[in-house]
């Protein structure tokens, strides 16, 4: 017996595992390619969708770590808003994009670290700890912004999200490239380093991780911090897109981000997660909304379709999984 089923996991099957989300994406593109007007398949529209995927994409990279470790972060939407507000305030103050970006990302890191500390220190489940941060970060954002959006000089930050970048040879917005490059780096971090393995181990069985001497608390804090950093970066990008700091932005975005990560093949029970899949999930969500607008369907139809697609994509994945078992 044995060996016949030599299920090597890794590399080649990695592609096979990606089949679920990629198939879903292709399906969405094909369907809208048929029902929506031609312009849906135009190069320009693809650039538009690419830029629209950046914020959810960045959020999804960080969230993949959290979900792989068996946690969840409901605060990312609020943290994005807070980071966008802080970036705007700093631009107002110092008019230096570098400083503003650093502080925007920094506040994300702080929120993430607080999440991690509350989860590990007070031993509160991530859902609740980050639900608290969901309100706190949003409240602070509104406070800082004086319950208003903030107009600030944007410097070159909007360039990051320019759909048609001034250097036209880079084809899509610099933000898209940043997301791709960070995605690759984070995929290496998750799959090829000790930190990544520890993330998987914690998600799979926390007491085993503890038994094996993994510093569970420290690792978790780092994971939530990482997620916060990416939320902060997404907030900066959000500021780039809006050119204003908006304390009410990205409300409910956490659900899109979580959906992207899960569509990408992560398991909310922990122990499974793929950055590449999460990014494909983010693009899929963007294509869905874009296609619905192209096809001119009313919002409520769009809401229903997105609901169905989320279920269908995950069902496909779980079906494929169960088949291979």
């Amino acid at each position, binding site marked *: 017996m044995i060996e016949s089923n030599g299920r090597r996991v890794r590399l080649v099957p990695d592609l096979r595992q990606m089949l679920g989300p990629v198939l879903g994406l292709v399906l969405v593109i094909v369907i809208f390619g048929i029902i929506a007007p031609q312009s849906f398949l135009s190069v320009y529209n693809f650039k*538009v969708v690419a830029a629209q995927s950046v914020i959810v994409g960045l959020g999804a990279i960080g969230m993949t770590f959290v979900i792989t470790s068996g946690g969840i972060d409901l605060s990312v939407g609020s943290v994005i808003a807070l980071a966008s507000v802080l970036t705007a305030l700093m631009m107002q103050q110092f008019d230096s994009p570098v400083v503003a970006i650093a502080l925007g990302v920094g506040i994300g890191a702080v929120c993430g670290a607080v999440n991690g500390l509350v989860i590990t220190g007070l031993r509160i489940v991530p859902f609740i700890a980050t639900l608290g941060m969901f309100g706190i970060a949003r409240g602070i954002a509104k406070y800082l912004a004086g319950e208003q*959006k903030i*107009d600030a000089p944007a410097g070159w930050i909007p360039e990051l999200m320019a759909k048609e970048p001034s250097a036209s040879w880079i084809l899509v917005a610099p933000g898209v490239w940043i997301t791709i490059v960070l995605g690759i780096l984070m995929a290496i971090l998750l799959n090829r380093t000790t930190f990544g393995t520890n993330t998987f181990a914690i998600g799979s069985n926390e007491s085993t991780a503890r038994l094996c001497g993994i510093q569970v608390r420290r690792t978790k804090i780092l994971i939530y911090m990482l997620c916060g950093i990416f939320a902060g970066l997404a907030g900066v990008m959000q500021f780039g897109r*809006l050119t204003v700091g*908006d304390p009410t932005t990205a409300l409910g975005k956490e659900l899109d981000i979580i959906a992207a990560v899960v569509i990408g093949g992560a398991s909310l029970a922990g122990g499974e997660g793929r950055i590449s899949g999460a990014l494909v999930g983010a693009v899929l969500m963007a294509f869905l909304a*874009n296609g619905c607008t192209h096809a*001119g369907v009313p919002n409520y139809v769009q809401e229903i379709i997105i609901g169905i697609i989320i279920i269908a994509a995950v069902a496909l994945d779980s079906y494929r999984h169960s088949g291979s078992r």
Partner: protein
Amino acid sequence: EHREGGHTTNPVVAVIPKGTSHEFWKTVHAGANEAGSKNDLEIIWKGPAREDDRDEQIKVVETFVARGVDAIVIAPLDDTALVPSLKEASGRGIPVIVFDSDIKWDGKTTFVATDNTRGGELAAREVGRLLDGKGRILVMRYVEGSASTMKREKGFLDTIASEYPGIEVVSSNQHGGATVEGCYKTAENLLAKYPDVDAVFGPCEPATFGLMKAIDDIDKEGTILLVGFDASDKLVEGLRDGKIAALVVQNPFAMGDLAVTAARSTIDGDDVPEFMDTGCTLITLENMDEPGNKELLNPPLDKWLNTK
């Protein structure tokens, strides 16, 4: 939609409201549809999927630009955030007509709107008149960062402060939030705290509605004077029953109509004025049945929304 059959020759106009599920926008939609059919335009009506989310509205604009519509008619959720994407639209030869709320960009073809500050002033003067210049009042705000309602709140509060020193504003920092339920709950809590105010102001339909119900609950209808903004069936009924002292009513139907008509003119290369005021009217029990006002309160929605 019936493009594959042949091709519709009618220009396509994208009308982008701030949201799709408020009566105000419904009425704008009806007005837009009417203008569309008058002017041989295909109207696509599409708001942001998540209401009050700037980024979502930008996405809608971007997508329409990618789709290549002939004109964009938009009520921007933000006077700055929408600028880059609208610039892009006009850069690609798509004229932009702005309605309801202004934008900090002079590339727009025209701006069709209610003067919201003036609406707030109208309401303030009515409160001042009803209270004879003295008493205690409160304002329940709508949602943080909503430009049009903030102008109304500001117009109202500034006028009270400057013209009616005898009127004390006991609370003006509570936001009801974007939903009717939220407005109602906040109104209840406010009135539990200040049950003996003389008048209250709601800067939009959900806020007014929430206040009306909360006043009703403590049996102070008519005692606490309610001055509100916008109309809906329940509010009109409230006006008739004396639960509401006055409503400042905009003309959303005309807004949709004028904006889309302006789009036609632009497509045809005709000149349009820079600003078109659709006006706002103070409606009370006395004048509510006057001919013009009657239509303001009951716009012909069914005719223009169900035919399509």
